[in-house]
């Protein structure tokens, strides 16, 4: 039933986004495409971090894989775009699987370090094999609007459409997945790995699955960004990008798909807005650090006002208060703390004492 409902919502969202996209001017369409692509990546990462409880500081690397896969497939094999996007997801997902296998054996800071290395090392591949990946200049390719839309259909609008459609598909799939047994298992795993394993969950396999899925999302995002910009360069997938994705995840609210939308919007739209704002308020474009400082300020303010991310803030405004200690952030904190004590036989004691006495099953039953 949820599947049907989510799919229905997805179709509605899709129609709204496409109509909206058609109403915008070319640059806004381009930005919309960028936002959609970024949200796909952030959504994948928020599932990995906020739901499965694994950290990746190097998710830009999987976007790199997806972007270059699309560029190479379109450039050399003339693959249709849809197929190239799916293939990019698969390739990036496989890369994520490899990382995930390693990740399943690593903990906390070691996992963070390993993913960080991936983000730093992978773009170097483009320099190593310049013949294939084009070195610093990367690869240029072209995308054409399909014929049935007519010759006057703007490329930027088509790019916006593709990105929005992909975004909706990814979001519907992720939303269903999170409500499914797998989503439940991931949350169990994140909250209490021991208990999850005791309940019969295959912890290692679930973790690798989360990494694969999240990397596949990043691959789709990389592919979408590539087809929006019509080129891929190593400079587009730096460590800074990975860190920005992480920022967007936290800003939006860990583990929240709606939060991923907020995070993606901030990531893409706020910096150019601040640049224009600074320029129109008397800062010459020479004082280039003003918008950057402003961006930092925005991030700090958002985190101060919404410590549980923007979506957390929205939820707090709209709905009843959730118990503070159950927030994903604190769950991860607890898990880290537990990790640090790993190996000690004393487990955390339960705080709650059952004072009122609970109705247990009638023993005479």
């Amino acid at each position, binding site marked *: 039933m949820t599947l049907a409902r989510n799919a229905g919502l997805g179709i509605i969202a899709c129609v709204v986004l496409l109509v909206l996209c058609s109403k915008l001017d070319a640059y806004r369409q381009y930005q919309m495409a960028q936002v959609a692509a970024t949200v796909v990546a952030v959504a994948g990462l928020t599932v990995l971090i906020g739901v499965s409880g694994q950290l990746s500081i190097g998710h830009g690397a999987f976007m790199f894989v997806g972007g270059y896969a699309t560029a190479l497939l379109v450039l050399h094999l003339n693959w249709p775009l849809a197929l190239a996007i799916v293939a990019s997801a698969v390739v990036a997902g496989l890369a994520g699987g490899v990382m995930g296998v390693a990740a399943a054996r690593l903990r906390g800071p070691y996992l963070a370090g390993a993913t960080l290395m991936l983000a730093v090392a992978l773009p170097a591949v483009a320099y190593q094999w310049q013949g294939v990946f084009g070195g610093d200049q990367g690869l240029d390719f072209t995308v054409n609007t399909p014929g049935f839309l007519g010759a006057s259909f703007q490329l930027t609008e088509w790019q916006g459409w593709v990105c929005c459609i992909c975004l909706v598909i990814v979001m519907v799939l992720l939303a269903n997945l999170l409500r499914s047994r797998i989503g439940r298992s991931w949350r169990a795993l994140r909250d209490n790995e021991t208990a999850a394993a005791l309940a*019969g969950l295959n912890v290692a396999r679930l973790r690798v699955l989360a990494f694969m899925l999240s990397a596949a999302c990043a691959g789709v995002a990389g592919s979408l960004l590539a087809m929006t910009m019509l080129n891929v360069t190593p400079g587009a997938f730096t460590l800074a990008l990975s860190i920005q994705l992480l920022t967007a995840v936290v800003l939006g609210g860990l583990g929240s798909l709606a939060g991923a939308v907020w995070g993606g919007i901030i990531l893409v739209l706020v910096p150019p807005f601040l640049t224009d704002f600074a320029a129109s308020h008397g800062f010459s474009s020479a004082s280039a650090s003003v918008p950057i400082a402003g961006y930092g300020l925005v991030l700090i303010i958002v985190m101060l006002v919404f410590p549980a991310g923007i979506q957390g803030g929205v939820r707090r405004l709209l709905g009843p208060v959730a118990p503070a200690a159950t927030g994903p952030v604190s769950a991860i904190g607890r898990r880290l703390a537990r990790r640090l004590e790993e190996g000690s036989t004393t487990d955390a004691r339960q705080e709650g004492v059952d004072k009122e006495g609970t109705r247990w099953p009638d023993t005479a039953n």
Partner: protein
Amino acid sequence: MPASSLAVTDVVAGYNSTPVLNGVSITARPATITAVLGANGAGKTTLLRTISGFVRTRGGQVRLDDVSLTRLAPDHIARAGVAHVPEGQGVITELTVEENLKLGLLLRRRADRAAALEDAYRKFSILADRRRRHAATLSGGERQMLVIARALLSAPRVLLLDEPSLGLAPKVVAQVMDLVRQLRDESGLTVLLVEQNARSALSIADQGVVLNLGKVVATAAAGELAADVALRRHYLGF
């Protein structure tokens, strides 16, 4: 389903280089309760974690009936029919009561799940009342109930219970013990019950095993142990 026996033979296991268990042997006969007693650090929790696969054995064997569980992964051991209720932290606070229970159903055949869940709600009616609530909002006793209910949903043959009375009011402890006895008597479960509270554990157990510094120092019928004043004073503190 006929009741099962669990046999731990000469098990050596531990965390780092120093083993916590030094050749422990315990046999839990079908449909009995074995109380595992001993002071802090005796190796009781490690014993349970070794049986359920979280601690690797370095020697010896663990068998469920005639199936060897030695060195299997935790999820495989769970599938084989061993349910482990860990000390204190078994509830997944992020999930609702029902979601917690559904985790226990993962090992069941799809067709059986709905009925099993309804069955659990009949048995634990308070959980039925709270099925949509986050587990974090439950009281200590309710949490313990939830973890045991979840363990039972996997239709285990052996139940490993680690300090189920920890942090609970005496009245609730009695209810827990009653439930455990009932599981043995009505469902034919074989139970390994680790308890600091030796008196209440022995009150329902068939057999008692006393661990000290990773070795079994006494194995006897529960009544005999309770009656052995010297042993009680020395190891059990009552």
